[in-house]
């Protein structure tokens, strides 16, 4: 019923934010804070790994959109790693699939970030 956030530096200028658990109205402020801290430190290439996320709601999507808006001001990018069909479906329905890069593996997402 909670979220785990693991931030790690990747080759290049990118950072990986690995999330596990459920991203909802209760937990998404913690995700927002973690992403915000990275951007404040000047990290504009983010790979957000959702492989271990079982659930995401509109507040979670909002946090991802907010992060994307901020890094874009600096020419950065947010790439997502996602395999879960229910979560992919939500990116489809909302049209967010067109504004995020969505990849099957962290490697692919990192390659696209460089």
């Amino acid at each position, binding site marked *: 019923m909670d979220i785990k956030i693991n931030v790690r530096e990747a080759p290049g200028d990118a950072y990986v934010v690995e999330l596990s658990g459920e991203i909802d*109205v*209760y937990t998404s402020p913690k995700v927002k804070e973690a992403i915000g801290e990275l951007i404040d430190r000047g990290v504009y290439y983010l790979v957000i790994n959702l492989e271990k996320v079982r659930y995401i*709601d*509109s507040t979670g999507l*909002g946090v991802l*959109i907010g992060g994307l808006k901020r890094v874009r001001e600096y020419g950065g990018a947010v790439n997502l790693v996602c395999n879960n069909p229910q979560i992919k479906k939500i990116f489809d*329905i909302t049209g967010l699939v067109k504004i995020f890069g969505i990849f099957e593996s962290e490697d692919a997402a990192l390659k696209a970030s460089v």
Partner: protein
Amino acid sequence: MTQAVEPHDLADVVELSIPGKAEWVAVARLAISAVASRLKFSIEDIEDVRLAVAEACTDAIQRASGDAQIDISCRSDERALHVRIRRQGTMIKNESPESEDSVGNLGIFLVRALMDEVEYSVHPERGTDLAMVKYVEV
């Protein structure tokens, strides 16, 4: 409430009331998943209902001020699950929900996409009221 969203008379009723606070939405999510599992829904449909109910709760928390409870009522029979989510309270922003283009609207957008029928109203003093139906595929 139109005729279409009116549930069956002999339907089973489950009612849940949770505090209007973010940390309790997970309880609604688990309870509605358990209710939906009792019907002949696919796993995908159960996940749709779970997200829709959670979005309705989130919307009720974000829109209405005060510490009123969120009241969720479910009526189900073999053909459909009707869920109504209500929360009393004065609206935080006094504007029609459909007029916003912020991310805040994404929640209700998702509810409309995931459920078969949706009726949504926000009243400046009376709070939020969302009734929705998901039909069991035959």
